[in-house]
């Protein structure tokens, strides 16, 4: 089930081949390398969305894969790999949120340039505002939105990753979207007063 709303999937990694998953579980370093190669980009984007800082996102990704490798025996290789990986990532992010509590937004890394200058400027401004609005959201809202919009997870997948019911996912998503829109519209400086 993909669920309602606009969701754009951004280079989500392919599902892991069962044989690779099995080898990873047995501690094969080559299988771990494949996993890092396939999923580091998605994990990094998730980290950027959750923490807003490139340095924190890099530490986060390293922690994820170290944790995943240490806990590899808990992965059942007959089941899809990505929900397990995302569950580990979300739990780690929550732990880091608890430790840090405060976040600051930093400028986005340079984007690959192509297209008209005016369009690029508009896109950069959009990216900056989206990033800043996300950092103003509560951590639970940021986590929900990062899973939905950065990984393109369906509502059912989110329920599996977060270990909650579909109804709870919808409720969290609704509150997260309201939170985000309030921040985003406020940042836009639009003349129309927010309700």
């Amino acid at each position, binding site marked *: 089930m993909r*669920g*309602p*709303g*606009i*969701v*754009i999937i*951004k280079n989500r990694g392919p599902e892991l081949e069962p044989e690779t998953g099995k080898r990873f579980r047995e501690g094969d370093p080559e299988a*771990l*390398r494949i996993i*890092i*190669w396939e999923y*580091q*980009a998605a994990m*990094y*984007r998730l980290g*950027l*969305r959750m923490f807003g800082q*490139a340095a924190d*996102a*890099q530490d986060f*990704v*390293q922690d994820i*894969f*170290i944790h995943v*490798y240490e806990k590899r025996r808990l992965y059942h290789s007959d089941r899809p790999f990505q929900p397990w990986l995302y569950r580990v990532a979300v739990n780690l992010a929550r732990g880091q949120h608890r430790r840090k509590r405060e976040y600051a937004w930093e400028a*986005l*890394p340079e*984007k*690959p340039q192509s297209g008209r200058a005016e369009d690029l400027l508009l*896109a950069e401004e*959009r*990216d900056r*505002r*989206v*990033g800043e609005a996300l950092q103003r959201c509560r951590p639970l809202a940021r986590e929900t*939105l990062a899973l939905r*919009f*950065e990984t393109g997870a369906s*509502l059912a997948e989110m329920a599996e990753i977060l270990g909650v019911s579909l109804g709870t996912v*919808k*409720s969290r*998503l*609704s*509150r*997260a*979207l*309201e939170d*985000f*829109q*309030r921040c*985003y*519209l406020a940042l*836009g400086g*639009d003349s*129309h007063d*927010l*309700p």
Partner: protein
Amino acid sequence: MICRDLLRWLAEREAGRLDARQSGELASHLRECLECRKTSEQFQRGMADLGQAYSGREPLDLSTRILARLDTRPLRPVLRWALALGELAVAGILTLLPSVVF
């Protein structure tokens, strides 16, 4: 009522939480209220922006750094103890072996 809670209504519709009656009520209100219609359009632009925004690309050497950290990671205490005990056992055997053999 809807004017005051418009963002919540729009967010709930987006998350698939409105039933048919509520969706109809919202649509009907948006047809009649110009201010809410404007906010609804901004909301939709915000949704599109959230979906399209570029978050960033990982550094090229990230996988190398992850693997380096895995290689240099200290052994867990249980493993350290197991290794120490193993070394002691081997030393003990090597010490006792000549007296047993000869």
